[in-house]
């Protein structure tokens, strides 16, 4: 099967133009590498003579090709979906392989360039400002080989995770965060709700980790004015319960990362109890911390 270079190039060029005008992608590309360059630089500057506090220091920097492509890919796929551009593109003569190849290239090329740039920056800093024995300690052949070999591999793997996650999530930010979590780059310690979160069921709750009585999940309720007749509130409650029981509504909520209260909590009494409990819980915290509404 023949691929059209012109079509692949068209998509790659379009992607680069979009990156340039997307603050989030620029920020990702600028900030993430700095984070991963800090450890080697700090370590090197505080190291006396020939001993390194950490072995294989260069390999720390594999974090750059591991994390940058996942986030850029997540933005790229989710952005395509949010703007509704996938359909017009796929109705052109482009083949799916060409489209996927172009998307991958558009992520991997800048990611690799940024990774190599930062490897260079760190090595140059050590050579110029580090201790005399720093450079040979840093540039060990196996490490360099590992870096050379693993940078593209890790980046390619990271892209797929970014694409897979963002294709599932409706929200760009949730996609980017979850992408990093699934990837193992961000370690999630626990969810702040009493039950595990459907979107990341492998993450334990704090309760399971032995930290009890922390429930800081966001919740939503519906209120009516105080003098609303009971038959009106009954009607509203029935309508809301019916809506929340609808599989399509549940699916949409799920996509937004929201969880629906279990049916026996979908009552005015349960909401009143929840509200009272929350007031009782947070009032002392607010008072103690001196939190004010601005």
């Amino acid at each position, binding site marked *: 099967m023949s691929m*059209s270079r012109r079509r692949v190039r068209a998509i790659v060029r379009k992607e680069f133009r979009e990156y340039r005008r997307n603050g989030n992608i620029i920020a990702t590309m600028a900030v993430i590498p700095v984070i991963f360059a800090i450890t080697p630089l700090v370590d090197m500057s505080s190291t006396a003579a020939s001993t390194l506090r950490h072995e294989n220091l260069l390999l720390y920097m594999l974090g750059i090709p591991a994390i940058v492509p996942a986030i850029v890919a997540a933005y790229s796929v989710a952005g395509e979906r949010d*703007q509704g551009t996938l359909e017009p593109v796929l109705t052109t003569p482009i083949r799916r392989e060409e489209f996927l190849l172009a998307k991958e290239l558009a992520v991997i090329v800048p990611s690799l360039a940024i990774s190599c740039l930062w490897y260079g920056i760190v090595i140059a800093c050590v050579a110029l400002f580090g201790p005399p024995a720093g450079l040979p300690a840093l540039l060990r052949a196996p490490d360099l080989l590992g870096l050379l070999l693993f940078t593209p591999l890790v980046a390619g793997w990271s892209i797929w995770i970014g694409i897979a996650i963002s294709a599932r999530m409706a929200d760009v930010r949730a996609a980017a965060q979850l992408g990093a979590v699934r990837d193992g780059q961000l370690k999630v310690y626990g969810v702040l709700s009493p039950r595990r979160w459907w979107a990341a069921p492998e993450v334990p709750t704090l309760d399971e980790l032995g930290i009890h009585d922390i429930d800081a999940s966001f919740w939503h309720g519906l209120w009516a004015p105080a003098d609303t007749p009971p038959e009106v509130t009954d009607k509203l409650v029935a309508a809301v319960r019916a809506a929340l029981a609808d599989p399509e509504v549940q699916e949409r909520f799920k996509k937004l990362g929201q969880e629906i209260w279990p049916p026996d909590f979908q009552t005015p009494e349960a909401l009143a109890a929840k509200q009272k409990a929350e007031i009782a819980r947070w009032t002392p915290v607010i008072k103690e911390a001196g939190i004010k509404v601005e």
Partner: protein
Amino acid sequence: MSAGQGSPAPRKPGMETAAASGARSGAPALSVQGLGKRFGDRVAFEDVSFEIGRGEVFGFLGPNGAGKTTTVRTLGTLIAPTSGSATVAGIPLTPENGVEIRRRIAIMPESPGLYLRLSVAENLECFADLYETPDPAGRIDRALRAVGLAGRARDACGSLSKGLRQRVALARALLSDPQVLFLDEPTTGLDPAATRDVHELIDGLRQRGVTIFLTTHRLEEAERLCDRVAILNTTLRTIGRPAELRDQLFARTLTVRTLLPLPDPGRVFGGLPAVDGWQQDGPASYALAVSDPITATPAVTRALVAAGADVLFVGESRRSLEDVYLQLIDQDDQAGRR
């Protein structure tokens, strides 16, 4: 075809298409036989057959959820049909022909789907390359001039109004000089002035001989722009020229209005051979069933004058395509309720 129940029966779809396309040249631009698409148990559309001649503007009408967009996506090779067959721009609709078909057609989807951070020209450049058009700069220039956006090439798409974005999407669809142009609800959400602009653009394309497949639920739009229309409600309910559909479904009527109510309308209208029946539909207003308005109108006027009535109005009341549409969709709703 499930169009049979209820009276009056619409003409069998697909029968007159050969005649209509025969007036145009050569093989049909689009030919569809028994096409259907199911998603699991849900039928999006089924048993759809029609032919569209080259240069024809074909309206595809139906309520929301009738399967219009799914039909367009199927014919545009985005999704595969589950039954039936079709030939699009002379090429059989099969998975391996997807690229070849997409080369010859263009689809303007309901939402423009532009890259909002890119300029108008950059959007079109990307698509000109995807179509591998020769002389992209010239094509882009021509397409922008065709939609009246020549001065906005450098504007970011995100800064354009909805109507202008729709025009950019139309320019994008024109880039490849398509043999068949699919326009999916091109005026949804546009204000009247922007709608009129899009209508004029479609009129212009028709004059250039582009075959257009237009889905819409705006009936005055279809009536104004289309040579023929089909009404889809999961199955194809009817197909034909707008005027033919009106005549098929409705007896022709004369509306008569007088200054004062007629003392004895039965005596005035009853004796006229040209009038098949009458009924009062207002204090001094009457609807007369006639078979030929040309002979009936003078006869009715004379009879009214002879009866001493002060005539305000005698004229044929034109049923619109909207009446046809509502009649058919109501039939479906009632059949569904039964």
